[in-house]
């Protein structure tokens, strides 16, 4: 019988790595409840006189609820569009057609073009569509992301082709094959899409900065910039704001982390 090597050294190393990675988060959280100056020496590991009043300050210093609602609406639109469009594109890329290799290369090459390089055409197109300063316009450039298309493609590739053939024999149209057969079998890819598109949309700063015209349409990252511009003595309140902005993303990740990891690793191994 093979003797198993002890696992505690691995766990110890992983714990040490976790601590190193979590320290910045802890520090932000600690500062948000203590307001301690980040340059104070020696630093306090445990917060002194913790309170939540910096969170109250943030809530009233800017229209936080409005920014939060805007971010939620834009993220919801982005997520819905990402799941639909990326699933369709991912399914198309699992089929054989002329020029598929070229399309794949085009997608891969487009991934290397930063959004800053295409922001002017994106702005002009959004303006032509009459979507400037609107929720749909805020979400439009992120309706589909190439990485997420490949996540869906990898997940769909793992589904046996015989299943699709059987559905076709039964007379199902392509959109029903995607909706009723492929998507239920690719939930981890869907979770990955949801998380990634949410985080990218939630943290997006440049596009909302350019295309929003009124404060009522601004999102949380813009609110943070606005908050910094006129709030003095911001240490505690700034960190509280960061926690309030980060919390939904962290919560979503914690809820769907298992599916997220599955989605990212699906297709990575064979057999």
């Amino acid at each position, binding site marked *: 019988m093979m003797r198993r090597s002890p696992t505690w050294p691995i766990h110890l190393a992983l714990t040490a790595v976790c601590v190193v990675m979590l320290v910045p988060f802890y520090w932000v959280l600690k500062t948000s409840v203590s*307001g301690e100056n980040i340059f104070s020496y020696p630093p306090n590991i445990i917060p002194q*006189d913790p*309170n*939540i*009043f*910096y969170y*109250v*300050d943030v809530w*009233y210093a800017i229209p936080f609820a409005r920014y939060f609602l805007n971010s939620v609406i834009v993220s919801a639109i982005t997520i819905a569009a990402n799941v639909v469009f990326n699933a369709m594109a991912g399914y198309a890329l699992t089929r054989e057609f002329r020029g598929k290799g070229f399309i794949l290369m085009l997608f891969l090459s487009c991934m290397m073009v930063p959004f800053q390089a295409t922001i002017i055409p994106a702005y002009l197109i959004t303006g032509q569509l009459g979507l400037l300063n609107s929720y749909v316009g805020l979400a439009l450039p992120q309706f589909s992301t190439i990485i997420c298309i490949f996540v869906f493609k990898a997940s769909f590739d793992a589904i046996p082709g015989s299943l699709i053939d059987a559905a076709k024999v039964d007379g199902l149209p392509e959109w029903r094959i995607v909706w009723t057969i492929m998507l239920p079998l690719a*939930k981890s890819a869907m979770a990955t899409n949801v998380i990634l598109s949410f985080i990218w949309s939630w943290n997006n700063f440049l596009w909302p900065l350019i295309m929003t015209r009124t404060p009522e349409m601004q999102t949380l990252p813009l609110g943070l910039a606005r908050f910094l511009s*006129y709030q*003095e*003595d911001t240490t*505690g309140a700034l960190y509280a704001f960061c926690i309030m902005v980060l919390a939904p993303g962290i*919560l979503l990740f914690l*809820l*769907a982390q*298992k*599916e997220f990891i599955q989605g990212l690793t699906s297709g990575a191994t064979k057999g």
Partner: protein
Amino acid sequence: MDAYSSSRRNGWRGWLLNRFVLVPAVILGVAAAWDLYASTHDDGLVAGQVFDAQGKPVEGADVTLWVFSFTTFAENRSVKTDADGRFRIMGNPSHHIQVSAVKPGLGSSQRIPIRLYFRSQNTTLRVPLVLSGKAHDAPGHPARSASAPGRLDL
């Protein structure tokens, strides 16, 4: 058994009773309860008592409410204490305030910083305002830095 497989097995109950629904539902429930509490306790009442340096209640002292405005505290309104030295300020519009008292001949108190959990929260000071006893004391010096978060003296 994960949320998805349970949802497939139990139909609509599975769709409702999983972490993707329950966690947001709990958060919304807590937020709704907090909103309900806040909406029933936001009359802007600030109550307390004023004593002189010997610990006796002071009648007719001027108690001033200072409200945080952008970077400084601005005077908002004043009331007078009753025979027991008690005061009730109504209509506090803020969540970040200070309170001070002054009476000619008995001096003035320090400003007591008060941090509230929501705007216009009803609050009663546990610590009384104590007049210095110095007749020519300038009223209304802050008890501590205006930007420092004071403990909630409710």
